[in-house]
């Protein structure tokens, strides 16, 4: 009885802020306004599959995938260095990695705008050194840069936490059996860290897939990803039905990819999920 009472606030919270909005989204996605009244219609959902929107989805997938991959290739070595026994200033580096996350997301992204601008900081330095100017602002490259920059900590931290927990005697056992450090990494450390790597991939891929601020600021106005498309429906064209349908579709997509990744991981421990 008392347990139920304690559950109360949590259940209410979930109901109001998770279940209810979900139902509202489903409601808007599956209805259309005809003659001042909303009635059931598959029209919005069908529009999601029009080629022009599928292209936006494809581009979003591509950029999110590239960003996730880059995050993995930059993040894994950093996590590895963090866990190395010789590394004495671990805490400082962890704080340095987490620190940018405490700064406002918008401010961080705006900062890149000034850095990358035609006459921005980077180009001033380049021209001072008589090097060709860099003009990646408002391109895929700038968007990917923004995503990697913003989401890298989400890759590093889960991998770090898993690597950190690997029993050191496993590494000693591998060395004892004749494995060089490289073989030890390939056959023991990396397989043991897969759970964390998968968590990191999910933690980066999901926000990269749904972000609308990064493509708008660093991709320029003309640049549309699925996040921007959804935002437009709610804030510009007021087509809540289509916006909801897109959101629903994206959610389903992420759920399926997430579930697939989870299944491939098996029963590994130590991930975030």
């Amino acid at each position, binding site marked *: 009885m008392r347990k139920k009472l304690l559950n109360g606030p949590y259940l209410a919270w979930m109901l109001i802020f998770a279940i209810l909005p979900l139902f509202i989204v489903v409601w808007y996605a599956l209805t259309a306004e005809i003659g001042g009244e909303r009635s059931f219609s598959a029209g919005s959902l069908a529009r999601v599959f029009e080629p022009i929107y599928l292209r936006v989805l494809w581009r979003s997938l591509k950029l999110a995938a590239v960003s996730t991959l880059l995050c993995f290739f930059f993040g894994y070595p950093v996590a590895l260095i963090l866990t190395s026994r010789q590394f004495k200033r671990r805490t400082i580096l962890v704080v340095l990695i987490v620190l940018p996350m405490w700064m406002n997301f918008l401010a961080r992204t705006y900062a890149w705008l000034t850095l990358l601008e035609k006459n921005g900081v980077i180009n001033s330095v380049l021209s001072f050194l008589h090097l060709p100017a860099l003009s990646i602002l408002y391109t895929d490259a700038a968007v990917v840069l923004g995503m990697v920059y913003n989401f890298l900590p989400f890759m590093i931290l889960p991998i770090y936490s898993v690597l950190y927990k690997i029993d050191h005697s496993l590494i*000693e*056992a591998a*060395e004892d059996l*004749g494995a060089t450090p490289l073989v030890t990494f390939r056959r023991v450390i990396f397989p*043991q860290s897969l759970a964390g790597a998968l968590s990191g991939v999910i933690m980066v891929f999901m926000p990269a897939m749904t972000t609308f601020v990064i493509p708008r600021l660093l991709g320029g106005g003309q640049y549309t990803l699925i996040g921007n498309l959804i935002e437009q429906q709610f804030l510009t064209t007021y087509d809540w039905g289509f916006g909801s349908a897109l959101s629903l579709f994206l959610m389903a997509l992420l759920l399926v990819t997430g579930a697939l990744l989870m299944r491939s991981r098996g029963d590994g421990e130590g991930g975030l999920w």
Partner: protein
Amino acid sequence: MARAEEIIRLKDICMDYGGGLILDKLNLYILKNEFITLLGPSGCGKTTTLRIIGGFEQQTSGDILFEGKSISHLPPFARKVNTVFQHYALFSHMNVYENVAFGLRIKKLPETEITRKVGEVLELMNLPGFEKREIESLSGGQRQRVAIARAVVNEPQVLLLDEPLGALDLKLRKEMQIELKNIQKGLGITFVFVTHDQEEALTMSDTIVVMRDGLVQQIGTPIDIYNEPKNEFVAGFIGESNIMDGVMYADYHVSFAGRSFECVDKGFTPDEDIDVVVRPEDIKLVPADSGMLRGVVTSVIFKGVHYEMMVKVGEREWMLHNTLMEPVGREIGLDIYPDDIHVMKKRKT
């Protein structure tokens, strides 16, 4: 018997983690095919010694020779020894077969040979047909055997074992003690075994090295160590003992507990203060008026094979083991024969 060949020699090994000496000029030689046990309380440096041999720790000073050549500078993967770790350290992302095959794959043996060797070693470890099993599904004793299999499949000349039986329950531990000893004999290789369990050491070893605070206290066969402990620490650590102060007033004559006894020791300075050790099972129970000593039983505990009785003699309690019981409060006599009195020099403090 011909003198056995030496395989490992530790020369003046010192280890200092920055907070005092863990090992203080350790000298030790290990023979081919012997089962040698490093025994001592926690913090005595036994595990550190093993890790230095394995290459997981670098000694502060001193040298290790393997078949006469220094291996101090070699990393673990280049040393011809294998280790069985305290908590097995099995690779949970691989099945039993892959765990055991790990070292063979690194040596790039052909797959057919790997399959044959893994099969043989699993047979030897009493784990036939376990190849496909996941580590998670194994019991503690089975994991232990996989860990040993993974090490011995590489046919090392020396196997290092770091308290490998610590995590097992008593019954399994006893079985594994016998099994390990048989495996060692069967393989004909050297085992360097670390434990804090004196009974384990006595059961399995050819040679026991008793350590304390980074210093070797005594090296000898189990029988030597038990019957002729060199000092009161060894006597107290190995088995139960009555340890007391005595005086060696002449060769073959010692006095303690208020009277003099004949003994088998000599060569002390006259009237030298010494420690006397008498094992509880060596004290004979006799009628009160015919004993060398006389005392009153103060407590009796049933220990299975024998009774453990505390007997008050003068101001001091003695521990006695006997298969017969005397009730609490009874006055009894105690006899101690010369052979059973162990006289030891006092440790310099």
